[in-house]
């Protein structure tokens, strides 16, 4: 068993014949928060999608080891059961499927994968109550159809609520800050901070530094043209905020 939660080595991926990732190397250890920043079209969301197991993307080179296992060999649902969670940039509306029923099904399939019996009704309800409070999600929303008619902020909060319920080892937040006003951002970020433990890790994909005021990263990586071109600590994010991405682009071309 490795100490790393995830180890990405030389990851190359394409979609519809178009190469997007060109050799990503990234290791996340327990208790760490890694921010992935970068200009539009640099491959940030592709990286999140490839890790979550979206079928449309084809990995052409490299490896991803998740808690000692080959992640790329697993179907999306198996990755989730093993402990990968993707908070979607655009959470999907699923009419008629209640949030609660959906989460109970998910939890039970994850438990089955781990050889555990289905969750007790009372335990499940207590968990719902507790986690709802954590992300300040309206009780009424939890009982409604998945994301149906939710506002942008409610959808993102629902993502964090699901994350709280499923207790993943690795949470990937794909531009969770996009479309959020400052209050919603604070609620989402504080939910994440409360879920952070010594045993789990986070990859926070974001375009803006703003989110990182609330979720303080241990490491910041800049993605450009499908590669990590610069890594640093949280100060790097501030530098990016100040100077924009152009100096990275220039440096890359010069280098």
């Amino acid at each position: 068993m490795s100490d790393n939660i995830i180890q990405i080595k030389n990851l190359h991926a394409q979609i519809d014949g178009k190469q997007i990732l060109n050799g990503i190397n990234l290791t996340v250890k327990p208790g760490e928060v890694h921010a992935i920043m970068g200009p539009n079209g640099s491959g940030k969301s592709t990286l999140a999608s490839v890790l979550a197991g979206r079928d449309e993307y084809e990995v052409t080179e490299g490896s991803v080891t998740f808690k000692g296992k080959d992640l790329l060999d697993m179907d999306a649902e198996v990755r989730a059961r093993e402990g990968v969670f993707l908070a979607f940039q655009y959470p999907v509306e699923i009419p008629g499927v209640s949030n609660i029923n959906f989460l109970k099904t998910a939890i039970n399939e994850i438990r089955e994968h781990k050889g555990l019996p289905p969750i007790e009704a009372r335990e499940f309800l207590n968990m719902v109550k507790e986690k709802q409070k954590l992300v300040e999600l309206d009780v009424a929303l939890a009982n409604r159809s998945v994301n149906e008619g939710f506002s942008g902020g409610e959808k993102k909060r629902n993502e964090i609520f699901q994350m709280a319920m499923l207790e993943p080892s690795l949470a990937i937040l794909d531009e969770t800050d996009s479309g959020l006003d400052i209050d919603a951002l604070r609620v989402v970020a504080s939910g994440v901070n409360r879920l952070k433990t010594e045993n789990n890790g986070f990859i926070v994909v974001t375009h803006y530094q703003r989110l990182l005021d609330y979720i303080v990263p241990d490491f910041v990586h800049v993605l450009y043209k499908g590669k990590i071109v610069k890594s640093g600590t949280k100060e790097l994010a501030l530098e990016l905020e100040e100077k924009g991405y152009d100096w990275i682009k220039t440096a890359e071309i010069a280098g």
Partner: protein
Amino acid sequence: MTTLVNTDLREQILAHADSAGLPGSSHHKISTFRAEALEKFAAKGFPGRKDEEYKYANIRPLLKGEFDFSTGAASLSEADINALLPSLEDAIRIVLVNGMFNKELSKLQSVSGLSIESLASYAEAGKLPGSIGTYADAEDPFVALNNALWTDGVVLSLSRNCIVEKPVYCIHIATSDAARMNQQRFIINMEDGASATIIEHYETVRLSATSFTNNVTEIVMKSEAILHHYILQNECENGVIVTSTNTCLDGKATYHINTVTVNGSFVRNNLNIVLNHPFAEAHLYGLYAANGNSLVDNHTLVDHRVRDCQSNELYKGVIDDQATGVFNGKIFVRQDAQKTNAFQSNKNILLSDDASMNTKPQLEIYADDVKCSHGSSTGQIDQEALFYLRSRGIGPDSAKRLMIQAFADDVINNIKQEDFRKFVSSLVTKKLG
């Protein structure tokens, strides 16, 4: 008489018609009613592909071979029937076996204001219910056939302000080892303020040859009458069903109809509703799950004849394998029908590349102050939603099941009778799971 082999059913019917010994034949009024209808049917025969109304529902290939015209009692036990039904202990039970009212297996109860009679006994006494032939379109070949050859059925009357709390559960059972045809008829009359829940449930038991059930229902509702009418079709692969349900709202009445088709090889439902009095309301729901080579065809017609009426329609289908679904929804808004509210929606999910759905909304509006809308969509399972569920650890099969169940629940949840709703839901889950 010569043995008829490989002759189509129309020829066999015409050859047998005189000797059928049908109920009420000795009474002039009834025999005339039958004879006129038989003439119509003889002229038309069964519809084929060229008939616009039955374009996709070609029944002819299914009606080959020799049919048994006997009306002898089939042997069925109470246990056979109990095995098919939800546990509705207190329901008023009507059992029809091969189109014949079976009194021994029925569980009729005495409720003040409610009368339930066999149509055959009614006819034998020389009586013909006033509304028979009034609301069903005699030009439709299947209605003409039923007009000519009905063997039995149910006459159900609710007098003024009669409120029947217990559901009236009518089960139609086809059972036979020879091909046969069941022509049954329902007459329902509801006076002012009457209220009921009527369930029609189609099943097959030990059916090893084609069973062609041709049912005609005529319902008339007076002022403030409320009817919850549920039709459940769950026949085996030998089952062929054609229904014609004709409801006339002749007062400020409310009609709820929910038609759920779970199994059967060929199902054609004609639902015709006439809104004939201001403030009458009709709510139409339908769900069909078709797989294998089966066909489910729902034709609905809502005729807004007068002002201030409301109709609301939602039909949903899940089509798999090589199955075919058909939906044709007509709404007429007559010139006098101002302030009409009429809504229609048809949504379908195709689960395989070979499944097909033919949907056609037809709105004809002659009034100018109305609110009408219709919409139709046919698509596959939403791949984004599927990935979303999978990304939470739910396997693709259960993810699909969750989504399809939710799709179907939209219709099923409109069944107000709780035990029956749960029963329908479990049948649908079993079928789609």
